[in-house]
């Protein structure tokens, strides 16, 4: 009975195999020898990225069953997904977290490949295709952020538009092309839907398959050993020898680690999705609502930070030239260093470059999360003043404190740990500046401070400065103008209770 069933199954298998003829190529791909020490936990990121791509495709299709790619309805359909479709929120969360993980895993994969010198001969093209895969992954993240058609999506795309508009000569045309019209509107969402759902994923999947094809054909990069140099003339023979003498079949030797890591990543996506939920949608995409603080999604936060620190004159050249240089640099890596050492022990410049990029990225991302350069738009109306700052204060000082709040000084200057961080914190400003210096600064501005000369009456400035004069720690005297005191003490020989010497 059992034998008969097995025989039937075998016949069915043979029927298909005779027509498809895939057994040979698959067996060859699966059972080919790879260097034994590449069966390592360091080599699991590429397959995890591919797994995440599959997850994104599946969850993306599932979301497309409900999502309406229309500027008028997209936001509503996302809310329907979140609140009315059973587990719609979970699917959205998995897609969003899958995207975060995919960007992260692709970057880690790239860093590992770079560190292990895996881009060297004969794998230059694998790296080149990988660079385009990275760009397309970021393209998916950006277009996906636009499809979450809320305030952040609207203004985030607006930032993209402003960047594009700086291209000389054709900036305006490019903006029209990107938006499908003169403003962010219905046509814009339609074309971003086409990009996010057809154009980019189609190319991404094709290039990912080319990438995997080359990995299978060229073999997995051997574990880098200090002193084992890559030479174009000898490498292929050396690699063949290595895989024959110290190789194991890819399946199961190395593949089980890929499987376990991919499962762990998928589980992590699921847990994050369940715990943290979907991202947005935030406020409605109504550009007449100005009560918004737009911020891009995680992968683009560092750009957001860089853009706030550039001096105005550098901005346009930097925005237009830096991305080209970065991409060209990445593409050039395998052609500049196609031979030689693979081991990070002997590649200090490569290690240093990677560390610099990683630290720079981390610092800018961290800065973008706290945005010390942005005014706190509601600090003036919402943040409280510490009580001790006003205890025993004169009416004039109190009036100054009110002016300090009412004129939005607090939006940029914090006091008692609350308020904006754009300008210096003012808890001890009286120790740094004399009243005259404060007056001058308030009236004329300077640096990053607007001039308030036209917006404050002399009486208001006096009140404000007398409040600021009280801001110094107990036991630390406020700053004073020594020359002024000298003049005063000469004019009035006996100042009542004044300091004895200037």
């Amino acid at each position, binding site marked *: 009975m059992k034998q008969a069933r097995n025989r039937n199954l075998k016949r069915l298998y043979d029927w298909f195999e*005779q027509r498809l003829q895939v*057994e*040979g190529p698959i*067996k060859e791909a699966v059972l080919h020898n790879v260097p034994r020490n590449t069966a390592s936990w360091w080599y699991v990121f590429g397959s995890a990225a591919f797994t995440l791509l599959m997850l994104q495709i599946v969850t993306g299709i599932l979301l497309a069953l409900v999502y309406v790619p229309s*500027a*008028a309805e*997209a936001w509503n359909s996302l809310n329907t997904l979140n609140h009315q479709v059973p587990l719609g929120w979970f699917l959205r969360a998995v897609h969003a977290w899958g995207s975060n993980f995919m960007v992260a895993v692709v970057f880690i994969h790239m860093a590992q490949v770079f560190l292990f010198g895996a881009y060297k001969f004969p794998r230059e093209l694998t790296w080149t295709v990988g660079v385009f895969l990275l760009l397309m992954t970021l393209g998916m993240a950006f277009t996906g952020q636009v499809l979450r058609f809320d305030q952040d999506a609207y*203004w985030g795309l*607006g*930032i993209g*538009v*402003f960047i594009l*508009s*700086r291209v000389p000569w054709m*900036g*305006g*045309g490019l*903006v029209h*092309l990107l*938006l499908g*019209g*003169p*403003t*962010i*509107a*219905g*046509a*814009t969402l339609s074309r971003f839907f086409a990009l996010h759902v057809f154009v980019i994923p189609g190319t991404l999947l094709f290039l990912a398959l080319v990438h995997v094809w080359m990995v299978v054909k060229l073999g997995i990069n051997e574990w880098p050993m200090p002193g084992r140099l890559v030479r174009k003339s000898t490498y292929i023979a050396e690699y063949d020898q290595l895989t024959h003498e110290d190789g194991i079949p890819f399946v199961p030797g190395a593949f089980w680690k890929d499987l376990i890591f991919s499962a762990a990543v998928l589980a992590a996506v699921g847990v994050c999705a369940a715990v943290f939920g979907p991202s947005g949608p935030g406020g409605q*995409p*109504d*550009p*007449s609502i*100005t009560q*918004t603080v737009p911020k891009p999604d995680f992968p683009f936060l560092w750009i957001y930070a860089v*853009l*706030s620190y*550039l001096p*105005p*004159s550098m*901005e346009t050249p930097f925005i237009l030239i830096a991305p080209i240089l970065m991409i060209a640099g990445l593409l050039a890596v395998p052609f500049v260093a196609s031979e030689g050492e693979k081991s990070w022990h002997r590649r200090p410049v490569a290690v240093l470059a990677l560390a610099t990029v990683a630290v720079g990225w981390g610092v800018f991302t961290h800065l973008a999360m706290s945005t010390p*350069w*942005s*005014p706190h*738009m509601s600090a*003036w109306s919402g943040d409280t003043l510490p009580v001790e700052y006003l205890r025993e204060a004169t009416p004039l000082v109190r009036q100054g404190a009110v002016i300090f709040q009412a*004129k*939005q*000084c607090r*939006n940029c200057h914090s006091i008692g740990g609350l308020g904006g961080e*754009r300008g210096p914190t003012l808890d001890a400003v009286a120790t740094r500046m004399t009243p005259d210096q404060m007056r001058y600064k308030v009236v*004329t*501005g*300077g640096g*990053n*401070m*607007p*001039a*308030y000369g*036209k*917006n404050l009456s002399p009486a208001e400035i006096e009140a404000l400065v007398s409040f600021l004069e009280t801001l110094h720690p107990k036991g630390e005297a406020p700053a004073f103008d020594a020359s002024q005191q000298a003049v005063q003490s000469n004019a009035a020989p006996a100042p009542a209770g004044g300091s004895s010497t200037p």
Partner: protein
Amino acid sequence: MTVSEESNRPNTLSTQPEIDKASDRDGPAAVSRRWLLLKAGVALNGLVGLALAVPVVRYLLAPVRTDSSYKSWVSLGDADGFPVGETRLVSFKNPWTQPWDGQTDNVAAYVRRESASQFTVFAINCAHLGCPVRWFPQSQLFMCPCHGGVYYADGSRASGPPERGLFTYDYKIAGGQLQIDAGQMPTLSNTAKLVNISSPGTNSGKDGDCGCRG
């Protein structure tokens, strides 16, 4: 699968001998004729592809038009509704619109009435990267929530990364209505005249900062 198994596998239709015979029969002239025909096939496809590409490119470039073709005059309401010396947030329907634009066709602007006959209508987009600036009447400043750009009441740059003042719309008074020439998201490419950044604390160049009208 061993090599012997592989060779035992039922092969595809065995046309091998016929091909051999055919190639025997073919002299160099016949072969070169076939190559010529192949080239003709490729050329034909190229020609047809090109012919089809022209309308495709035209279709794709459809949104690329002159700025003026997107713009038209929009009323912001009764000019007398704007008090002299004050700045008000107004919103209007974008003149270039599709039925499926939803809320995105609401556009906001700030109207400042300087005197009975003089207005300035600012776009809400920060001149740095387009985020919506907010007006604070108490301190007479526009502040941007993104990168901290700040502008004075007249739209000139006060501080932060913007390299110019706020964008303005052309306006006119028609039949008592304040009208602006709108329809295009203001960016550096369409409304821009790059101007020198006024040095902080001085008033020089402020007018130039906002020289975006007309």
